[in-house]
């Protein structure tokens, strides 16, 4: 698979192309250009480090949206094995933007759910660009209840620009579907791990994100609003998205610092799309590590910790209440 460069990666890709030319030239003409090749390789390495070590928030958003980034179903068949897809919310339909079912990770049999994007137009139309309808959230909850009933932990992979803003979604109460998930996930009697693998777009992301462990891939983002949406409102133009991305503190490291997530999962240099297999391996290792701890915990303790974790989120001052917790 040939990788598509993001704008800020173009100088690197350009140099890599030149390196290939040089090597070809050396072979064709049978001249030894090894010193030049070495010099150029060193330069590429340096450029990569310089670029990828200090990615801006906006660059990470672009990586999180990279069309070659691994998606939910990729992980269901790489980090997981024996995936059985189960369809439908038993109320209205089957939301293809939110596949779900049963799968195994390491020794753990699980319920899995996640947002699914498409790579090209046809697939994207089927997957609605990863934006789920109410049916998706209701299907997700139905699967989670299966997990509760059969003692299977729930793994939810988050990758959505946001819940779908459409007429049907509103008519069937997308707000209520998300809200019910928030309430029910808080008290679901089985361990839950959510991983933001790409885009964590506001309420649509959180709708499967109330969990005992919330993990984030290094270049994923998680935000109350898209950078473009925020820019349109606060800067009066979408072109200010890079500034908005910075201001929103939406990167994995930012969220870890704000204590809103539990762990950042490292990605291969340049992003998960550079090496699907390696990313899946790290993801699997991290999920299994947490599952081991969570499945050993008594359920009452687990639920108390889950509540306490979200209960602590928030920053404020002037607290002189007698009711303070």
């Amino acid at each position, binding site marked *: 698979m040939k990788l598509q460069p993001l704008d800020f990666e173009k100088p690197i890709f350009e140099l890599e192309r030149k390196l290939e030319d040089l090597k070809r030239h050396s072979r064709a003409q049978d001249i030894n250009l090894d010193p030049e090749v070495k010099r150029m390789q060193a330069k590429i390495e340096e450029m990569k480090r310089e670029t990828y070590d200090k990615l801006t928030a906006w660059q990470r958003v672009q990586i999180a949206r990279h069309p070659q980034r691994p998606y939910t179903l990729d992980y269901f068949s790489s980090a997981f094995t024996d995936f059985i897809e189960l369809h439908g919310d038993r109320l209205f339909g089957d939301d293809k933007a939110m596949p779900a079912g049963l799968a195994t990770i390491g020794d753990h049999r699980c319920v899995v759910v996640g947002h699914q994007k498409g790579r090209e137009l046809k697939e994207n139309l089927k997957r609605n660009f990863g934006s789920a309808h109410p049916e998706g959230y209701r299907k997700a909850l139905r699967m989670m209840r299966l997990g509760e009933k059969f003692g299977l932990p729930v793994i939810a992979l988050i990758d959505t620009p946001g819940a779908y803003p459409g007429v049907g979604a509103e008519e*069937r109460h997308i707000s209520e579907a998300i809200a019910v998930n928030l309430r029910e996930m808080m008290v679901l009697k089985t361990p839950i791990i959510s991983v933001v693998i790409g885009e964590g777009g506001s309420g649509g992301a959180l709708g499967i994100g109330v969990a005992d462990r919330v993990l984030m891939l290094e270049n994923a983002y998680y935000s109350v609003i898209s950078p473009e949406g925020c820019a349109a409102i606060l800067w009066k133009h979408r072109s200010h998205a890079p500034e908005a991305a910075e*201001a929103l*503190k939406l990167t994995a490291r930012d969220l870890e610092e704000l204590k809103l997530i539990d762990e950042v999962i490292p990605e291969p240099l340049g992003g998960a799309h550079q090496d699907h297999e390696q990313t899946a391996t790290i993801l699997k290792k991290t999920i299994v590590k947490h599952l081991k701890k969570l499945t050993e915990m008594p359920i009452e303790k687990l639920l108390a910790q889950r509540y306490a974790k979200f209960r602590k989120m928030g920053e404020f001052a002037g607290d002189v209440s007698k009711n*303070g917790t």
Partner: protein
Amino acid sequence: MPIFKKPDFRSESKKRDMPEGLFQKCPGCGEVIHHLALAENQRICPKCDFHFSQTARERLEHLLDPESFEEHDAQMVSVDTLKFKGMATYTDRLKTYQKKTGLKDAVITGTGKIEALPVAIAVMDFNFIAATMGSVVGEKLARIVETGTSERLPVIIISASGGARMYEGALSLMQMAKTCGALALHAQAKLPYISILTHPTTGGVSASFATVGDVILAEPKAMIGFAGPRVIRETTHQDLPPNFQTAEFLEEHGLIDMIVHRKKMRSTIADLLKYLAPKK
């Protein structure tokens, strides 16, 4: 995709920014009404019943038994944790709205009585940064719901909101989980939660505590929805059905239990609580 975009406000909210204006034009019928006449009528147009927005204090005054309200967490204020750099700083916004409204933030919470029935109550005030939910709103709501749980009180929340508060980034997003979590424990204790939706209730507030009431009431013609109509039109290139995202539309589509005229709200809540409130 801006999910938590502010809804299209009617001219009404702009007019309210001019405190010196003695008269207001009714968006419902065009009648010009003196502000005292409006205030005396719970801010309902005497001619066409249009419900103008009310401040949180006004609502509490009309809903609760006199002298029964005990406010909680009155001093809690927002902080600019993200050091948000936009066109205006968050700290400046907060100061401006605190001065303009006399409020510390967008919700007032406490305990009180409705027709002698004790309740834990929260009222959002749209005049404060469009009653967006940041940490203070989330924390005050979580606390009053927890008070409801520990003191075995019904919870009443009157919502109005433009959604989550962008200036607090993901901190504000997580308030959705926090408030719903507190309500989950309240529900497990078999205590009633009545959610009252007023104009407008949107975004992260509609997608959290506002839509998980045991009973959901709404004021007539209130705009209620997840995404704003403009966002939906731009995303889908679809025409919106008539009355889309109004309380009436949502009652028809099964979200709302009852549309209640403001003057009947107090007695309706009391009637419901007589069935649902825990026996003492």
